[in-house]
């Protein structure tokens, strides 16, 4: 499982947080959220480009509301970067692509 680049949902996130020492990028979105739909393929592309160097976890706020609350998400899309239990960065809203890749580069 740890070789995969893209995961879905809170249980995948919990597993990765416990078992992986790599960077985890959590994308919290919601259905009918246009900006989330725009962001999704961009992060998936970044995950492919960085093959293996970080895990991307896609979380649907309506399916995993507890995690969204835990991560302090009040608006979607929100991207949260984790290393183990340490929160490294948080990007709220749809931002220029460069911001995501820069944040990943810094945190790797």
């Amino acid at each position, binding site marked *: 499982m740890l070789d995969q680049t893209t995961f879905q949902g809170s249980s995948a996130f919990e597993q990765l947080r416990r078992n992986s020492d790599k960077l985890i990028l959590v994308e919290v979105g919601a259905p009918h959220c*246009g900006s989330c*739909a725009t962001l999704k*393929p961009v992060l998936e592309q970044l995950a492919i480009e960085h093959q293996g160097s970080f895990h991307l976890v896609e979380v649907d706020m309506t399916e995993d509301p507890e995690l969204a609350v835990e991560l302090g998400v009040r608006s979607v899309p929100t991207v949260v970067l984790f290393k183990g239990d340490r929160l490294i960065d948080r990007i709220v809203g749809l931002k*220029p692509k460069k911001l995501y890749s820069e944040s990943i580069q810094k945190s790797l």
Partner: protein
Amino acid sequence: MIEQLVIIGSGPAGYTAAIYAGRAQLKPVLFEGFSVGGIPGGQLMTTTDVENFPGFAEGIQGPSLMQQMRQQAIRWGTQVITDDVIAVDFHQRPFTITTADLSIRSEAVIICTGATAKRLNLPGEEQFWNNGISACAICDGANPLFHNVEIAVVGGGDSAAEEALYLTKYASRVHLLVRGDRLRASKTMQSRVLNHDQIQIHWQVMPISTHGDEVLQQIQIQDQKTGAVSELKVNGLFYAIGHRPNIQLFEGQLALDPQGYIETTGKSTATNIAGVWAAGDVQDHHYRQAITAAGTGCMAALEAERWLAEQTHSLSVAAA
């Protein structure tokens, strides 16, 4: 390599231009944007039911309409690039179009970057955006949320008057919040608003905050003369304080009309630069509908196609 046609923007105007240009075998490159000036697909991406686009008798969701247009553009050979254009150079041909990652040259450009509705950015606004607060009465007015309830419209121009009148069809009472001491709307609109028994005008007031639970329930308004703050129980708050065309990229290069939109010539979509056309809301502050944007997108593609053919023709004549 020099492209024949680049389209900047991806609302109904951009995709329609791409469909026509694609079918004319111009192999258009379309920059659909990313995070500047709204998301790819444009203003309809943040709309729910589109009930007035011909051909969809039962209505269609804004995002699925845009998805359909996008697919249709791709089917006819459009190359879609999901990124924001950050610079253009129209000073010499071929024109240069630049994103953070690449720069391409093109003989012709169609601008369809649209417009963004102005907002007041009140406390609570993000929370209630599309849950009571809207910038488009004509889009959202028929939402059951606004049936037989009191709502407010902010603005004093023609569009505020028009929206207030339109909303009386659904709402039990429309509060028109005018920030100044008079209406800027035309005389005809003014008298219709002033004489409408469902419309109550509040002069020299400014909304200052929004409140509710899942949806908007109440706003606070402040009297601009006395500073007194009062509550207004409304389930809807509509902004009619104008649109801002997304022209930042082109400032200093293209002629704008007195309202700041790209100026087009007569009944065409031609700008002041040969080889550059503008379609959709970026050049239209009057109609601002998906269907009119699509219409001008079509015009721009046809004009560009004809112009490109003439260029090729005159080049071959010159060579011969």
